[in-house]
Structure formats: structure tokens, C-alpha cells
């Protein structure tokens, strides 16, 4: 099938306005929230599962690669059309199909925005727990693909802990179901396996999620330190104390000053680091835990532990945290955010190591991260127009991740592998590990027509690059620095 005929048929599925194929429109789809780019040849906006099936089958006939995309807030290139082809954008498949307060479940289409679901559930005293910083924009479908986390996943778990059922379209166009409203079922847990598969196994078209009861009481604390070491040691001590906060975030001095300048959240400009700590639950338990945390922080050298007096103060403190990446964007042409994970006891020495790496490569690195679960987000500032700086930035990023792995950690805690870290999967996994994962990939997606060249190192996916003429004629990739991480 000629590409023009593919486009023509695509336009028949849901109308002309459900298809974008002009280059100025496609430019909007060559980015995500990260630093890589790759342009699709066409974007289709399905409204129903049936339309997804038809588009998938059509793409198969035309031998066009398919990449599902939510809001494009991802940070690892998972929703970029690395090999060109068709992007399925889910912004029109955004209905909440059911809220079942008695079973604490919701059934949603993949394009539903994360925060919209919590708002819709609020009248029932419920909410959707995973809360990525991008939750005002990111979609549940994207959360499923990336097994997204967020600050409040420390106590309540990441996306996979909150998904009980999935309807998905397979790369061959077949619609399948996994699970349902029941939390467990008989047979393989393909629901759990699908979550976090980064759009490489199938396209989620309907998702059943758990809703949690809104806590009766919340306490938000801001522990202020003169040095980052004291803050890091407090993280270790709080974990050891046996208190599990709902959230435990660390911002270093540089980052909190940058954030404060942008959002006026009330962070102290002269401190070395702060911990933003939240405990929630039963009123009495919250008071107990807040007190225990206050004591631990003071023992570890906090010069002050503030507590948000009301919801407004609380929102303000969180606004600072959740808008931090944006604040950094105000002062640097670009930044490269890492997503390494380390055992929590290694937070202090890892921060020292990151500082050394920054000095070694002459780069500014800000630290803002989910300290409670050891999920670091070092922000490396750079100017993409400066080739040498860009090179140093990528090298520093890799060195930070290598260090995380060397202390028993991981290369990604919540952002995913995508096309950003696929080449360094070997740091974590042996050839045999990857072979077994590849076999599972092939059981779902044998020809790699769905989200090709993601997650696996390219050395093992050579076979999939031998693609169709349609694909090779217009692969537009890597026109920005960093595309070849």
C-alpha cells in the first residue's frame, strides 16, 4: 500500500479532522518532556477501541510502525515515533466510563488526565493515588505504559499497584482483556505484566483502576537544613525509625532557591537543603507520625521544622515541588533529568558522588527527588546549542546512573527506559535476562510493529530495523542534540 493511500484510508476511520499529516502539525508530536526528538509521519486521534483496531490493522497492511501517545509528558522518549510512522494520540479517548465508589474502582479510557480522575472521584471521598508531577496533563494510559510514580507513591505504591484490569489492542489488531474489578484473578497476571511495558506489548484502550479513600488528616512538614548531608541523613533515619511518610521529598539549596524565585512557595532562600514530608491517614496516627518525624529531623540537625497550617500553605509547598522542573527551565536553556534509584541508606554518599561528577564535567546539577524511596532526579543544566556541553551532560548522566547501579540501584525509577536508556540496559540486565524479556516481547509484538526500537539495546534489535520502504523513506530523527543517547 502506498503511504498516500494509507493516509486516505486512515481519514475514513474517524473523519479528516482525526488525522494530522502536514509537517507543521507533526512538529508538535516530535517532542515529549525529555531531550530527544523523532517525528511521526502521521497522527491519528481515535475515539473508540474499534477505531484503534481499524487503524492498527490498516497500519499493518501498509507496514507502518505504530506508537501510542498520551499527553507526551514522558521523559524517556517512549511516545516518540523513533522509526517514523503512525502516532496514535489518545487525547480524544478521554472519557471516565465508570466510577464505582462501592468497589473503589474506576474504568477509564487511556486519554483521561490523571488529575481529572481524582477530581471526578473526590465527591465520593476517593482519589487515584499515583501523582506524577505532570498530573495536570499526563494521562492514565501514559501512567500505565510507564508504571508512573510520583511523590505520594512512597506509601501507596506506583501505578501497577492501582491497576486491576486492562483492555488492550494487540499489534495484530486483536482486542484482549486482562483482569477486571477483582484485585486478583486466576491465570497469569498479564495486567501487572502489561503495566510498565512502555507501549511495546499492546495499546491499552480501557483501564480499571483502584481508587483510594481520601485521608482524614494530612500533615505537611518542611524540615530546613544548613547542609544537604543533614537532610540526607534524616532520610535514612526516618526510614530506620519505621515511619512511612506518604511523601518524602528532598530539594537541595540550589534547586530550592530556583524554585522559590519562580513560585514563592515559602522555601527559605538561605538553606542548604529542605525535606518536604507528608504524613496522612487517621488523625491520631498523623499526629504521632508528624511528631516522630519532627524529632528525627531535629536530631539530625534540622534548624527548623515547619508545619503547613492550612490547606493553602500545604498547596503552596507542593506547588514548589511539582513546578520545580518548570522553574529550572526559566534559568537554563535546557536540562537533562536523571531518574536513578539507590537504596535509601545510600542517599548521602550518592549525593556526594553527584556533586563530584558535576565538578568533573563542569556542569551545574540540581537535586530534587523522591528521597523516601531513593529515586533521584538530578537535573543537569545545559545548552543544547553547545555541542561540547551537551556531550559532557550525557556523559555525566551516564556516570550518575552507573553509580546508582554500582550501589545496588536502578537506571530508572519511574520515567521508563524508552529510547533514552535502552542502550544502557546492559548495566542492569544480562544477555539472558534481555533474551527472556525479548521472547515475551515477541509473544505480544512479534514483528515489532508497535513502538519499535524502544527499551531493548539496539544491538539486539537489528532485525527490526530492516523495515518497509514506507518507513525508511521518511525517518526523521535526531535533529536535536541528545537524540543518540
Amino acid at each position, binding site marked *: 500500500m502506498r503511504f498516500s493511500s494509507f493516509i486516505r484510508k486512515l481519514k475514513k476511520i474517524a473523519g479528516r479532522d482525526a488525522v494530522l499529516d502536514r509537517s507543521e502539525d507533526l512538529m508538535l508530536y516530535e517532542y515529549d518532556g525529555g531531550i530527544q526528538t523523532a517525528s511521526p509521519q502521521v497522527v491519528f486521534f481515535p475515539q473508540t477501541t474499534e477505531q484503534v483496531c481499524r487503524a492498527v490493522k490498516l497500519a499493518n497492511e501498509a507496514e507502518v510502525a505504530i506508537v501510542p501517545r498520551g499527553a507526551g509528558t514522558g521523559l524517556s522518549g517512549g511516545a516518540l515515533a523513533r522509526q517514523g510512522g503512525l502516532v496514535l494520540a489518545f487525547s480524544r479517548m478521554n472519557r471516565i466510563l465508570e466510577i464505582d465508589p462501592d468497589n473503589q474502582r474506576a474504568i477509564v479510557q487511556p486519554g483521561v488526565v490523571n488529575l481529572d480522575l481524582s477530581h471526578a472521584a473526590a465527591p465520593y471521598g476517593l482519589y487515584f493515588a499515583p501523582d506524577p508531577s505532570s498530573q495536570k496533563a499526563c494521562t492514565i494510559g501514559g501512567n500505565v505504559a510507564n508504571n508512573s510514580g510520583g511523590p505520594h507513591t512512597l506509601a501507596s505504591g506506583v501505578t501497577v499497584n492501582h491497576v486491576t484490569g486492562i483492555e488492550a489492542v494487540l499489534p495484530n489488531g486483536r482486542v*484482549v482483556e486482562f*483482569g*477486571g474489578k477483582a484485585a*486478583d484473578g486466576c491465570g*497469569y497476571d498479564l495486567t501487572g505484566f502489561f503495566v510498565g511495558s512502555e507501549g511495546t506489548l499492546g495499546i491499552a484502550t480501557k483501564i480499571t483502576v483502584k481508587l483510594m479513600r481520601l485521608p482524614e488528616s494530612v500533615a505537611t512538614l518542611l524540615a530546613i537544613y544548613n547542609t544537604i548531608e543533614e537532610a540526607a541523613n534524616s532520610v535514612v533515619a526516618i526510614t530506620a525509625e519505621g515511619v512511612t511518610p506518604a511523601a518524602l521529598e528532598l530539594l537541595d539549596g540550589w534547586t530550592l532557591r530556583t524554585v522559590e524565585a519562580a513560585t514563592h512557595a515559602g522555601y527559605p532562600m538561605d538553606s542548604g537543603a529542605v525535606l518536604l514530608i507528608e504524613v496522612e*491517614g487517621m488523625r491520631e496516627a498523623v499526629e504521632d507520625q508528624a511528631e516522630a518525624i519532627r524529632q528525627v529531623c531535629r536530631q539530625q540537625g534540622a534548624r527548623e521544622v515547619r508545619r503547613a497550617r492550612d490547606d493553602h500553605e500545604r498547596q503552596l509547598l507542593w506547588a514548589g515541588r511539582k513546578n520545580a522542573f518548570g522553574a529550572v527551565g526559566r534559568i537554563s536553556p535546557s536540562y537533562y533529568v536523571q531518574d536513578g534509584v539507590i537504596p535509601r541508606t545510600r542517599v548521602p554518599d550518592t549525593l556526594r558522588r553527584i556533586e563530584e561528577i558535576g565538578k568533573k564535567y563542569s556542569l551545574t546539577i540540581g537535586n530534587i527527588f523522591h528521597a523516601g524511596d*531513593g529515586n533521584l532526579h538530578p537535573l543537569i543544566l545545559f545548552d543544547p546549542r553547545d555541542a561540547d556541553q551537551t556531550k559532557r551532560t550525557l556523559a555525566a548522566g551516564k556516570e550518575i546512573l552507573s553509580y546508582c547501579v554500582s550501589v545496588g540501584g536502578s537506571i530508572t525509577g519511574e520515567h521508563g527506559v524508552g529510547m533514552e536508556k535502552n542502550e544502557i*540496559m546492559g548495566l542492569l540486565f544480562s544477555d539472558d535476562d534481555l533474551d527472556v524479556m525479548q521472547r515475551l516481547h515477541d*509473544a505480544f509484538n512479534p514483528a515489532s510493529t508497535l513502538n519499535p526500537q524502544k527499551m531493548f539495546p539496539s544491538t539486539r534489535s537489528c532485525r527490526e530495523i530492516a523495515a518497509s520502504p514506507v518507513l525508511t523513506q521518511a525517518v526523521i530523527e535526531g535533529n536535536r542534540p541528545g537524540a543518540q543517547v
Partner: protein
Amino acid sequence: MNAVAAQAPVAEELARIAGSHALIKDDNLETYRVDGMVPAAVVMPESVEQVAEVLRFANAEKLVVVPAGGFTQQQTGRVPERIDVVLSTTRLAGIQHYDAGDLTIGAAAGTTLAQLDAALAANGQFLPVDVMMPERATIGGVLASAAHGPLKHGYGGVRDFCIGVTFVTGDGRVAKGGGRVVKNVAGYDLMKLMIGSYGSLGVIASANFKVFPRPGNKTGTSTFVLEFPSLREAMQFRDKLRASALTPICCEIVSPRASEYLSEKQGTAREVEEIEPGSFSMKSASANRAWQILLRATGSERVLERYRRELGGKEVRGREESELWRRVANFQAGVVDRHRNAMLMAVSLPPTAAENAIVAAEKAGLDNNLLAPTIGRVAVGAMVMAFVPLSVDPPSAMQFANAASAFRATLPRDASAVVLRCPQEAKAYFDVWGTSPTDLGLMRAVKRALDPNNILNRGRFVV
């Protein structure tokens, strides 16, 4: 090729791989019987490399392998087509790493829950898996069967806190998923595939977990025993509780019949006391007729004070409390102790379907001369239902099959009711797994991907 003819060369090769001391001698093979079938050989490798070598050999020879841990749950599954080798993880045991400061632990698959618990208790921590027979149950077996106990209410299942796994595929490849940190999205989540796969996709060699502060270590725990004259009232209480701010770590319903298996006498050398036909109403009049909900809370004294204020009911603490929960966790074993022929089902459903399911189980039981004592995590929809013979006559296989089918027919589409155990004869008349909402074709594809020659637990699992 029949199993006996194959026996000698198979044993020879297994001895070459794992040493002759790793083989069970002929006379003792009987004890490794699965559904009446005696394996041709039993091997106990002591390293993941040996497991891989055993499986590569078995795969090449197309020998059927049954992975085994503490043998507490081998009754689950369809009757095997045949068993050539039981691969026991008994010698694959021990804590591999434990960093109390990080609240993470890793252990080999044959490590028992009791061993793991002893290590964790020394640091005031625990793994919230309270299944029956912890001295025998292994972590590999718990993962393979997705086993859970009352703590699932507050902590979730192993799916929620297993952070890494190493296993060997049917064709002898060693693979790992996840890692040692509590948050990690690198690569496919192979833990989820292993959990609940009943040894049909791979032999689990070791696993890593995130662990939790032990309730009662720095804070107190208390259990509130609440009694209700009817199931309806018990369920209304459950709904009120779910809408409240209280966050108990256990919320277990105990049907009047089930409470008999939690009584003081349970677990002692008590005479088997079958219930006679016709005496049902009289017996039940004398027995405890109340529906109970057992709520376990943890926290400071002021937290527990609030539970007292809002719940009332009888409060149990200390040794009596831990003994009560030990008995609840051992409910299945308690039933089987008294009724060799009992059928046990694990039922998972949306919480609102629990009430109908309990009623339906009792009716399906009575229609087939069976009683249906029920316990379970009623607020999260994870129940255990026993079907025990009402008469002194040995029950017929058809009674179990009919009861299971009648009960399953009442459940919502996405619920599942898996038979954990039943008399072997009954397995010929119905499917112990029942239906699954999950796509069968894909499950088969996953099985083929990891066990291409179908040597692992052939014929026993869903696919």
C-alpha cells in the same frame, strides 16, 4: 517411554548435575506424590546454575518437571499428565542480603517464611505474608501460588512488595526481573508473571522484597472481635468501616461455621467429628451462630483508643491475639485436619460481590450435602471458602464438582474461584481453575515463550 524405564538414566544424569546426595532415594519417592502420582525422580539442586542444568537436561529429554517448595500447596492444580522429576528447592535456601536500614531483603526460593521472619524480627521488621504453615511454606511457593493471609487487607499481596526475582525458564535460561530497590521500572515486570503462575513458567530461584516495620514493635496492636446476628449486618458494618477513616491492618470475616475451625480445641489431637445428616439444625443451634468480623489495628495507645471508641466489641491483645491470627491463617489446614475430603476455594471478587458469594456458597454447598464455612479479607474481596461433607458417608466426586459449578455460576464475570484442593477423584469432573477474565490465547503465548517444550507442571495449570 514410561516413567519406570526412564528412571535409571534420568537419576544418573541428575546425580551427575547435582550430586548423588541431591537425589531422593527410591523408598522415599512416595512422599513426593502429587495427586497420587509418584515422581520418577526427586532432585534438590543447591544453586541456580544446577537448577538451570537440570532444566536444560529435562527440556532436551522432554521430561515433565514439577517445581516444589514446602509441599504445602501441591494439591492445587489439575491432575498431572505425568511427573518425571520433582525439582525441590529445599536446599536452595538462605537469606542472600538484608539491609534493615533500607527495609529490603533477598532470599533463596527454598527459604521458609519462618526463617525469613526470624531474620526480620531481629530488627523489628516483617514481611506481611501470613499464610498457613510458615515453618514449611517457602518464599518460592508463596510467590508461585500468590498465597496470602489476613494481612492482605492492609498491606496488599506479594505482588505489591516483591521487588525482584530470579528464575529459570523451562529451557534452562536464568533470568531476572526487577532488582533490590523499592522503586524500579527498568525492563519488563517479570515478578508479576511469576506470581501466581504455579511453577508453570519457570522455577523461582530467589526473590527480593520490601519489608515493613513490625506491628507491635514500637507501637501496640489490638484485635477487635465484632459479632453480628446476620451476614447482612456484618456486611453493613464492613461498608461503614470502608467509608470511615479507620485503617486496620486486617479485616477478616468469619462465618459461624468457620469459627469452629478457629476454636481453642483446634490444632490439638482432637477426634474427627463429622456432622451427621439430619442433625444440622440442632448442631447449628448449639454452635456459635454469630457472624464475626475480626479487625486488627496498630498504632499508639491514642490510635487504639479511637478504635475502642468507634468499634466497641471484645478486644484481644498480646499472646491471645497472635494465637487468634495464627489460627485464622491456618484455617485451610484446620479444615483439612478435620475433613480429609474437604474442598477449599480461593475466591477473588469485587468487594460488593462478597455478600452474594457467601450466600451462594452456602446454598451450593447445602444443595450438594456440603457445608461452606467461609473466612476472608472481605473488604478487599479475597475469600477462602471450604466445602466440607455434611454426612459421615464418603462424599461422591460429583458433589464437589456440582457445588463448585453451581457456586461459580453465581459470580460476576471478572471474579475467579480457584479450587485450592479437593479430593483427587473429583478433579476429573470439573476444572479446578474455573474461568479467567484474562485472555487465554495470550496466556498460552506467554507459556510458550518461557517454557517452549511445556515441561513445567504440564497439564496442571490454566494453560
